[in-house]
């Protein structure tokens, strides 16, 4: 069959189909982002509902919290204190609206937004939403997204472990892993999404499905899973999602439903691929508990840096110049450097606006490399922009001997102006 035959065949479709599409073209559509926004709001309320539900008295719901949040739950709500709060993630960096940072102390007062919501009403509302949407309730236990270079293109592979719950009582049905991959291609100016793949539930049919149907390399998948596991150890957090259309054990993602992958992508897009007309930051700060957004942003940030760790070709060679020792890394070039500049959260930019991706050290920040646990201050950065890689040269202090054998970990720490650790990335392979 030729393409022309196909195009001709479309002309002869049922008039009802043509008329429907013709009419739709003439009618502006409702804002889908608002749907996402609504979902985010729904998630907010559900996140709020669980601790509230616990307080309301169902003893069995305790299991939700212990399962969902290896960290802690906030101070329970009471009828006298109708302000709901959000789940805690002690140790997490909290990015405030004004761009400042602080660390969640896990005591229930440092992070998150408060909502003047009555717990019972919230829970009832969440139940109604669940029912109306024929949704399955799930807890994301772990989530990660890694970037995998593939020539000039790259994949973003997102993996998440989701515990599907029977209902609001917290009875667990099963834990599954869903993987979602997007391919981005360079179009001379920026990376654009070229295709997306849903790998679906990966627990028992990962390899065949991935290689045969999606062409996503196994190593990407495995790395994504590995990162998921790793992150779960370091940064436990959980979120509740309504997994619409998730039937039984099959979590194959339907593109028309807004659940995790869509949602996560929206947030990631906002973080990584800033578009002026895109209001996802509003979505983050308004629609969902801030602690979660903080984590997600932090995850994104760490994941970006994790590219260094996971995929950068660590050349394992040290060049001596200017009396400093330089560690050289090849970092896949993404547009993300640019995105940090425009993120309001990162208003004190860690990276310059220069498209050549000159890395700048904010005067208020201190970048440190630790090698085998010992700290070396980075005295200079040098970036070489060679498509599709950026070579990052970190000049570290003269006390670092180039003869020193690196046996274990190299880590990049970024400290804030108050010497607080903002974030870090492991650079070791």
């Amino acid at each position, binding site marked *: 069959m*030729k393409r022309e035959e196909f195009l001709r065949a479309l002309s*002869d479709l049922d008039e009802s189909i043509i008329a429907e599409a013709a009419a739709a073209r003439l009618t502006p559509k409702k804002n889908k982002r608002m749907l996402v926004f609504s979902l985010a709001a729904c998630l907010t309320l559900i996140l709020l509902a669980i601790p509230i539900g616990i307080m309301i008295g169902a003893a069995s719901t305790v299991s939700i919290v212990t399962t969902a949040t290896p960290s802690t739950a906030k101070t329970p709500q009471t009828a006298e204190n109708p302000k709901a709060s959000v789940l805690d993630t002690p140790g997490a960096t909290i990015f405030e609206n004004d761009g400042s940072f602080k660390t969640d102390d896990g005591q229930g007062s440092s992070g998150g937004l408060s909502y003047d919501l009555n717990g019972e009403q919230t829970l009832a509302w969440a139940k109604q939403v669940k029912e109306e949407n024929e949704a399955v309730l799930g807890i994301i236990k772990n989530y990660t997204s890694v970037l995998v270079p593939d020539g000039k293109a790259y994949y973003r592979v997102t993996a998440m472990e989701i515990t599907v719950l029977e209902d609001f009582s917290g009875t667990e049905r099963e834990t599954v892993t869903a993987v979602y991959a997007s391919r981005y291609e360079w179009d001379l100016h920026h990376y654009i999404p070229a295709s997306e793949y849903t790998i679906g539930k990966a627990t028992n049919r990962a390899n065949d499905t991935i290689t045969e149907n999606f062409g996503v390399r196994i190593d990407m998948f495995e790395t994504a899973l590995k990162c998921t596991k790793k992150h779960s150890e370091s940064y436990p957090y959980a979120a509740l999602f309504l997994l619409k259309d998730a039937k039984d054990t099959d979590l194959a993602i339907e593109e028309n439903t807004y659940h995790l992958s869509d949602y996560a992508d929206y947030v990631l897009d906002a973080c990584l691929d800033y578009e002026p007309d895109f209001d996802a930051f509003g979505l983050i700060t308004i629609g969902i508990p801030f602690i979660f957004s903080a984590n997600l942003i932090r995850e994104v940030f760490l994941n970006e840096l994790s590219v260094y760790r996971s995929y950068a070709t660590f050349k394992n060679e040290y060049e001596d110049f200017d009396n400093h020792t330089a560690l050289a890394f090849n970092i896949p070039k993404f547009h993300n450097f640019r995105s940090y500049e425009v993120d309001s959260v990162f208003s004190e930019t860690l990276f310059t606006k220069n498209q050549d991706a000159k890395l700048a050290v904010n005067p208020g920040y201190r970048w440190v490399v630790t090698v085998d646990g010992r700290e070396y201050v980075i005295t200079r950065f040098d970036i070489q922009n060679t498509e599709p890689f950026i070579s990052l040269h970190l000049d570290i202090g003269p006390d670092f001997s180039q003869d020193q054998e690196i046996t274990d970990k190299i880590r990049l720490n970024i400290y804030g102006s108050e010497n607080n650790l903002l974030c870090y990335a492991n650079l070791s392979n």
Partner: protein
Amino acid sequence: MDYKRIIALFFERNEEGIKAARQKYNRYLESIAQKMLASKEEAEECVSDTYLAAWNSIPPNKPDSLMAYLVKLTRNLSLDRLDKQNAKKRKTETLLLMEEIAEIVASEQDSLTDSLALREAINRFLKQLPKEKRVLFMRRYFFFDIVEEIAKAEKVSESKIKTTLYRIRLNLKDHLLREGFVV
């Protein structure tokens, strides 16, 4: 004027019908032709030919939707002209669209495809899609709307549109293969 009245005028062989149709649908039809042909002049000629074709085919045909009927005619006439254009003349957007279609129909070989069966197979496929996706597919491959334009109208990101279209293309290809077409 109500489209049923316009059809009635065609049946009465009253040329006021053409005038009324032109008044009601001209802009819409021209926008479709222009999208496909990338030439205002050719689009105008194409739409004029559309009314002539409609005049010659109504009666005996009595369309349920005059707009859909005229759109089909315009599209077919535009495709005729597109066939005559060489690749260099075609606008980038059309080439891009053809590449996307190549994901469904990769073959460039002449075949003995039963056009009626193909049409019905596509009809069946589209009818089982949710309306949203069906409209999206039609906008892109029937009306030749560009992705950016669809995204704006639908108020979603371009990536979302591209992704959804990509999945629809894959599913349609599967559907056609299952129905025994050589794609």
